């Protein structure tokens, strides 16, 4: 067991973790931030995507113990309390979710995609960049539309 201290959604937190504890387990089980989901055991689905020190990561592939001093943002902390991030708004407006299980990871990936690729995203780029996020409900159609619209809206709000 080791103690790890980090900042999650703006709050300083500490937790006792085993060497094998994953960041996603720290978030879900220790901090009860259950918006970050686990959809697989091979780092393929992207349901667990969060921002670690500002970059999108699959939190099922990060050891919690390696996050000492890190800053983590999860879906719960993407927008200030009571507000929606433009990407969240775009997902709702464009009906980019059905069951909603992939959605937190999709949104966190989408915001990271904007960081990496800019606000003007063409369809091809969005589809290629979604390689690491699986959705079984939507056929991706509305997710791609939402990401394009959300990226543009982020520019307007920036």
């Amino acid at each position, binding site marked *: 067991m080791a103690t790890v201290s980090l900042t999650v959604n703006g709050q300083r937190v500490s937790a006792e973790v085993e060497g094998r504890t994953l960041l996603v387990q720290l978030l879900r089980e220790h901090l009860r931030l259950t918006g970050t989901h686990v959809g697989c055991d091979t780092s393929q689905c992207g349901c667990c995507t969060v921002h670690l020190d500002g970059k999108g990561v699959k939190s099922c592939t990060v050891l919690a113990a390696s996050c000492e001093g890190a800053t983590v943002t999860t879906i719960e902390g993407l927008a200030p309390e009571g507000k929606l991030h433009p990407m969240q708004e775009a997902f709702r407006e464009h009906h980019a979710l059905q069951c909603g299980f992939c959605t937190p990871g999709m949104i966190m990936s989408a915001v990271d995609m904007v960081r990496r690729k800019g606000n003007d995203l063409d369809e091809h780029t969005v589809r290629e960049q979604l390689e690491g996020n699986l959705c079984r409900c939507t056929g*991706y159609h509305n997710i791609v539309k939402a990401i394009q619209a959300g990226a543009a809206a982020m520019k307007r709000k920036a």
Partner: protein
Amino acid sequence: MSHAARSTRIGEPVRRREDHRLITGAGRFSDDVTLPGQAYAVMLRSPHAHARIRAIDSRNALALPGVIAVLTGADLRSDGLKPIPYNPFTLHPADIRMSNSDGSPPFVAPCYSMAVDRARYVGEIVAVVIAQTTPIAKDAAEAVDVDYEVLPAVTRTVAAAQPDAPRLWDDASSNVCLDADVGAKDATAAAFARAAHVVKIETWIQRVTGVPMEPRAAVGEYDAATQRYTLHAGSGGAVRLKTDLAKILGVPAKNVRVLMDDVGGNFGTRGMIYPEFALVPWAARRAGRPVKWTCERHESFLSDFQGRDLAVTAELALDAQGTFLALRGSNIGNSGGHPGSFTPLQKGVEIMSSLYRMPAAHFRARSVVSNTAPTRPYRSSGRPEVMYVMERLIDLAASEFGFDRVELRRRNLLKQGELPYTNPFGMIYDSGDYHDAMEKALKLGDWAGFPARRTEARRRGRRRGIGIANYVDTATGAPRERAEITVHPDGRVDLVIGTISNGQGHETSFAQLVNEWLGVPIDNVRLITGDTDIVKVGGGTHSGRSMRMGSVVIWNSAREIIAKGTRIAARLLESDPSTLRFENGRFRVEGADRSASLFEVAAAAAQLGDLPEDLRGPLAAFSDETFNIASFPYGCHVCEVEIDPELGTLEIARYSAVDDVGRAVNPMIIHGQVHGGIAQGVGQALMEQCYYDPGTGQLLTASFMDYSMPRADNFPFFSTEITEVPCTTHPLGMRPAGEGGTTPALGVFINAVVDALADYGVRHVEMPATPERIWRAIRDARAAPPAGRAR
């Protein structure tokens, strides 16, 4: 993007009310449930496809610190747990009946929640390990010593049907559990005898799996004082899960409560009770504390119900002009390691002839068991398989006998005036305009402009193909549904209903109905579906039944509320009930300026002590209905693909869909259903397969590294169009919309692929049409002597 909703009534693309919690991480899925003091279960699963369990030694596992118990099939039997009450046939009276043609009963074996004597597929549960934490339970599972006697295994459908195949049950005469004849044998043979043309296909609609993104999870509780079990687990319906669970546990239904909130996808995969859902509450009783189990993805691949897996041989007879005369063949469905569901076989074969005029048909329909995970209905159970076969037969007939593919369909497609039409298996198609859907799809997919696109692609060294497929979908499912509406004086309305959303947006679309009929703002409608202490009756979400049946019981309840409300308002407004009209949420006295709102009336119902008995108390009404008629959604899809002949790689260039829903409640949600349905259908045709090694029965595709899941870059934007020809057998004209996206997708996609390879004379490509398969098809066709080519 759907246009902005003009109101929140029927027909508007209202943005979903459930989304806020789901996009902010506040959804509550099964694994988000954590109870104080819970222990954790891990399932020890058979590593063998077929093995006798000689003995299980748990001593080493129990010696590990933190291990609470190891439960085996012997414990299950000694505790008196009953078999899972799977009913292999569909219960709906409109589906055809099937029985063995020799008069003997179908073979059905009891299925326990754990292997009790033999494991019959890789992944079948052999023991449950309960410990303080999941990691401890995993370590302990490895320490359980199971003495297996490995037996020969069979996985493939046709092989399993052979008389000399390794047999799963010693007391069955073969692995064939059901061997039925449907249709008219002699009339069909006579029609074939006078046919000018006969075309044949032999194909396998391969095994795939539903892959809801939320892996299954369950938390079980047992309260010794009340002797009640509680199960928290996402499923396609709460009531059926509760009833089945009570049967397995051998307790009265009132001693079981099922709870669920958000459910991360279903597609049929969550349609029936799973063994773990019984094991976890049982383990909670044994352990004296709550027990939680969370499925890992590799376990989902091994143990989720899988879908499809139908081996077909089919022949179509035509006259010289191309008029269809008859259809015949054989379907063998593979039900996997337990004969638990003949439904896909049944629901497929009964509409084998699709929307075409077919004077005669005859099929042999068999179901086999094999050493693979059990299969169950998967999105549009049984129908995508048979639509694929019919649409392939038509394209093959066109290319082999020189007909135009579209003309051949036009000639044989039923006309509106011919409806209702009884198909050769006895299914009655009620209504629809099939020609209109096809013509619209041809237009939407710009069929006429295709030759130019093909030529252009050729210049780039690509082979472009286009395909078309019509479809019909039989929606039946559990026939009974119930809704209850309660109007609260404070402005809220509770709607309790027995079906449940697994992502289909019921909180929005059902609220739209309430808004339409009662004038209540949608945000004031609270939908209650996931607690069996409140929801007592209902069939759950499958077979396009939620809106189809839900709308009717909600409508009946709303009308009853208005009828009761009118009588109460009459008292309140001192008028005769016959002078009252209910509009926009208010009861108005005609010709006078007096009115009372629905909520004022609800308050009066609670307060006025001298109302007649039936009006006193909360303003509430319910409707409990049984729907014995099937519904037949239909439509037409057009797909265009482009192939790189050097690599066999493929890109979907266009996909256009026209689906008739009779009357659309929320078109935005319906388009979304079609998009997702297309992706699942095309996913099967293009890339997905549960691949069992034929020798060992090992599942070689048990992770996302190996099972090919459709991703965003496999698809273009889809063009989807909804048509609304009212359904004559539904009081509100509605047809289901959840499965139509998938039903024609297999056929239309393979038709497009084969068309793209027409230059090479490729006759057919089996699913999944992987680059390797396409590349080989091109190579083999090139190597074939020219006489063997179709063109």
